[in-house]
């Protein structure tokens, strides 16, 4: 029975992971921004028989509150075995191009605030020489595209940060999982027309939990995105820059 923390517990993907973890008997601590959604998710998990040891509604961009948050988690759970970072925002690319403040805001959410959480988690787990850290990045971080490069750059930076962290924590026996979903049918993509490329959050969650169990390094979910991104990464830049992507 692991002690698990979810940052972004009310994201569609986070909720499905929480259900699976609850089914395995994990003790949970839930962190999310919106108190009402958090309450709805907490009630759902409890009715399913989950052991929710605590929860906190907090805007995770406010890194200055992270230390207090970790203290609260410590006293509720008494340690962390598994942590999942599952929050983020799909930036409005066009608006970010016009306004640096907006771009910085997005980078703060999708990258900088995660670094703060990861620094805390890593130091704690490295000392205990135990734990699994899983973070939802994105296939969008594998290559910059004009339609989506602020989000892409934040996720790309996150992926590279995680590579380094994995390398550092390997010695301590702590595993770091980078999760790269393709399109997922969640509120984040509710404005997009759905097609066969969209996966359900339940499917992605299964991939995540399996990846954590097997102490994987990087996973694409669903798996076919590895092939798609392999092809996209191998297009020469001289050609790529001409494409309308």
């Amino acid at each position, binding site marked *: 029975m692991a002690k698990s923390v979810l940052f972004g517990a009310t994201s569609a993907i986070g909720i499905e992971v929480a259900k699976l973890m609850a089914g395995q008997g994990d003790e949970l601590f839930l962190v999310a921004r919106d108190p*009402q*959604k958090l309450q*709805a998710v907490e*009630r*759902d998990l409890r*009715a*399913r028989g989950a052991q929710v040891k605590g929860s906190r509604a907090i805007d995770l961009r406010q890194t200055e509150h992270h230390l207090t948050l970790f203290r609260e988690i410590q006293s509720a759970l008494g340690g962390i075995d598994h942590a999942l970072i599952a929050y983020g925002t799909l930036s409005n690319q066009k608006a970010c191009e016009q306004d640096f403040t907006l771009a910085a805001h997005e980078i703060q959410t999708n990258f900088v605030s995660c670094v703060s959480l990861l620094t805390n988690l890593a130091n704690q787990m490295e000392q205990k020489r135990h734990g699994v850290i899983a973070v939802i990045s994105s296939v969008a971080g594998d290559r910059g595209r004009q339609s989506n490069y602020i989000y892409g750059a934040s996720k790309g930076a996150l992926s590279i940060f995680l590579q380094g962290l994995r390398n550092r924590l390997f010695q301590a026996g702590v595993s770091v999982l980078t999760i790269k979903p393709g399109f997922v049918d*969640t*509120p984040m993509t509710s404005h997009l*027309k759905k097609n066969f490329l969209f996966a359900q959050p339940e499917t992605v969650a299964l991939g995540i939990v399996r990846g954590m169990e097997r102490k994987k390094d990087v996973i694409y979910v669903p798996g076919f995105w590895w092939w798609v991104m392999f092809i996209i990464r191998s297009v020469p830049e001289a050609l790529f820059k001409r494409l309308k992507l």
Partner: protein
Amino acid sequence: MDQKTEIESWGRVLKVPHEVAELHWMPQRLPPREHAHSYLPFGEGRSYGDSCLNDSGLLLKSRKMNRFIAFDTVTGILRCEAGIRLDEILNITISQGWFLPVVPGTQYVTLGGAIANDIHGKNHHVAGTLGCFVKQICVLRSDGLQYLCSPTENRDLFGATIGGLGLTGLILWAEIQMKPVQSSFIDQETIRYSSLDEFFKISKASESTHEYTVAWVDALASGHHLGRGHFIRGNHSQKSGQTKTKGLKVSVPVELPTWVLNQATVHCFNSIYFHRQVKKQQAKHIDYRPFFFPLDSIKNWNRLYGSRGFYQYQVVVPFENDQEPIREILKEVAKSKKASFLAVLKTFGNVPSPGWLSFPRPGVTLALDFPNQGASTLRLFKTLDAIVRRARGALYPAKDATMTAEDFEIYYPRWREFQAWIDPQFSSNFWRRVRPGAEKHG
């Protein structure tokens, strides 16, 4: 949100463009309706006809509002968001000894959709409809208000919304009384019977001994064999036990060419199915899923009927006149040779439902599937309609795509009262068909 999406119902006869709003959380207000003329809630689209469709309207997809709100494992009172599916409920509650008070023939329907059609199950003769077990619902209307409705509070809106076909507002959550069970198994008995009279005899005898009764009928059999089939009855097993088996799942990946299901193949299927059981009577201790939801093991079985889709015709007629109406219907169906290999016969009891437009009423119900063969199929329905009307029966809106406005008024005499409670910004294809005066703008 201006993008239109083609949505079809379970029968796949109609494919209708809609704007779609995916509701991930129970909303405080309805989403803005820019170009769309009206709203209609949508669950899993397991209704066969046009009651879950609203051409060019804004569909309120509630499937992702699927959370438990509270479950009291002592009293069995369960409160859930309306988009939760019955399988999602059972997966959690059955291991705690609680079962849904009423289930339809598939567990892939939402709680909200089930309430809006006031569904019935194989236990109607003793339990009544699902509406009888709804303790409370919360309905969000276009005036921006949420109405708590129960048999004692906002009673009219409660009566209008149970079986209200999604027209009275969006059900946000519902509270129902679950039923205690000892195990997830059913003690099932199957009896092969060879005539309609025999069906009624077995049915009568089983009503006091079995909580669940239903018969599968060979709708192509005629003459002496008219109404022959398998009578299936069961009770929740008293022996405690749980299964975890998921069972084999197959899927119909693409729609079949229309000619595959023709009279010859269906006749062949029916004959094999009828004679499959060699013994006259057979008892089994089986998991609740194959007992209640046999078709759920074939994903997308509705594609079997090909690109033109199919109709279901479900009727109830009162017990009188020596069951002549049901005999007449079966005769007409057999004579028409319109392949229909899913035919179900069951008796309804007299437990009244709180729903004003509820379909079940004392009598016998027959549900038949017909591949859509255009005008000839519709002609057959006209013939059947005349029998139903004469017998003072009714058709089931959840399955219906062809009922006329005149018949609707006769079958559902409380429609006028009901109409006053329709949300002025809600409408559906079904409603505009049976109330041609109803405008799109409410």
